[in-house]
């Protein structure tokens, strides 16, 4: 768990507040550009664009 960290969106470079209860491999959205991002590392915080939705994704 981490607390109140920030990171930059890899798509638009906006500053994102990372939730205190964020988890590794969690998906979050950039509030500025709407890009779906994945937290690939918590310490240090590292974000990457989430994988594109594939045809077999779903419930």
């Amino acid at each position, binding site marked *: 768990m981490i607390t109140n960290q920030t990171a930059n969106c890899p798509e638009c470079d906006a500053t994102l507040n990372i939730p205190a*209860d964020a*988890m*590794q*491999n*969690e*998906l979050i959205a950039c509030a500025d550009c709407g890009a779906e991002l*994945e937290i690939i590392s918590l310490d240090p915080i590292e974000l990457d664009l*989430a*994988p594109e939705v*594939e*045809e*077999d*994704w*779903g*419930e």
Partner: protein
Amino acid sequence: MMRVGLLVTHIRAEEKALIAAFEAAGVQPDVILDRDVNIDLNAGAGQIAPSGYAWSDYGLIVERCVSTSRGLYLLAVFATWGIPTVNDYQTAAVCADKVRTTLALAEQGIAQPQTRLAFTPDSAIEAIEAVGYPAVLKPATGSWGRLLARVNDRESAEAIIEHRQTLGDYNHHTYYVQAYVAKPQRDIRAFVVGDQTVCAIYRHAEHWITNTARGGSASNCAVTPELDAICRSAARAVGGGVLAVDLLETPAGDLLVNEINHTMEFRNSSAPTGVDIAQVAVAYMLEQMRVIA
């Protein structure tokens, strides 16, 4: 102590809620990413999982892959190795395929839309016209309301079929055709855990596709004895587990089972229903592990 694995493509709100529910129950699940899996299919469950533990150390693996194909293949592996999973491979395989779901429901006489299966453009037109316009064309596998087509007339049918034949792979040359149900701008999603309908929501939308993944909104739906009965029957028909049963209401007020989801999304459903779906699901999962052990 047997371990619990949570098999995921990535962590979404649902997986986060499940992890919290496991932790509240005193269990720390190992998160296993499907992208990290590299299994020797000729070797057994003694090989090491991405978590660093042997697969055979797992008393339960909860399959929550957003990738249906990855989830199904891995459930098949675990079933072969005798590792308990929720849901199990048989249930997931039936739910992931609309044709097999329809057959399973039909076998138990459970009310559902009129549905036909065809494989060529000509027979697909015949199937569509047998159920009548408007009809609904769906991919046999797929989710989130993707590539659903409401077919209002012969010209639309011919155009959609030509597009599917030309642009789609072989999966899109299987024509799963349903009669359109004139539902009241909403459908019902009920959550069935084991043999209990734990809660249900209405999914409201102006559009005929009401999936919350497509922007539909959720409100509480009372679990009436009628809804409870059809949902539990439907869940049993596909093998049971932790399932979301989607239903349509006919103009006459009858309930029809539309589809059943085996890696259900519920982030929008606990708040309107007041039911902690993750907690209920985890209690069932841990009970399954105890029963099997």
